[in-house]
């Protein structure tokens, strides 16, 4: 999994049936201190995350196991919303 910050979303009406009802959120991968690291990707959301939330994302085939349908053709799913890290870091200031 990797740490990320939700920075936006995508809408699509024409899509595969398995994506019906799934929110598609832009996630910017971040380092432990909150600074961006790598290219943003689009992830399915399983946690009702919103823009600005720090999250962690499960990717590749395992991404489907964070969704009710384990055969969903997703390669990235938000698996959790980060409340805080221990020991706390300057990630707190990057809220």
């Amino acid at each position, binding site marked *: 999994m990797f740490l990320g910050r939700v920075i936006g979303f*995508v*809408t699509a009406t*024409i899509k595969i049936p398995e994506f019906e009802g799934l929110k*598609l959120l832009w996630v910017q991968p971040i380092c432990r201190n909150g600074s961006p690291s790598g290219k943003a990707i689009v992830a399915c959301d399983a946690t009702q995350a919103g823009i600005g939330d720090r999250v962690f994302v499960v990717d590749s*085939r395992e991404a489907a196991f964070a969704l009710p349908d384990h055969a969903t*053709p997703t*390669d990235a799913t938000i698996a959790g919303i980060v409340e805080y890290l221990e020991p706390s870091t300057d990630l707190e200031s990057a809220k």
Partner: protein
Amino acid sequence: MNLARVTGTVVATQKSEALVGAKLLVLERLNERLKPLGEYTVAVDAVGAGEEEIVLYTSGSSARQTSQTKDSPVDAVIVAIVDSCTIGNETVFQR
């Protein structure tokens, strides 16, 4: 998933048996602001995407989780035609 623009079609009569009947499109990956990233992918089209359309595609083993790509030698499949793309509160793309 990654964002991409459809930039062409692959025509190949001599190919893996398992790919017969699959529509193969050439995708140019885009970042969250629709800037090209210089990465190209050949993906199976599962949603009827056309030339120049902005799409989302799934990569890796997850790409085999659609009815069209089941048990096929496919690691990239188009899963949606994008209607809109929003970063923060700015709509950066509207179909």
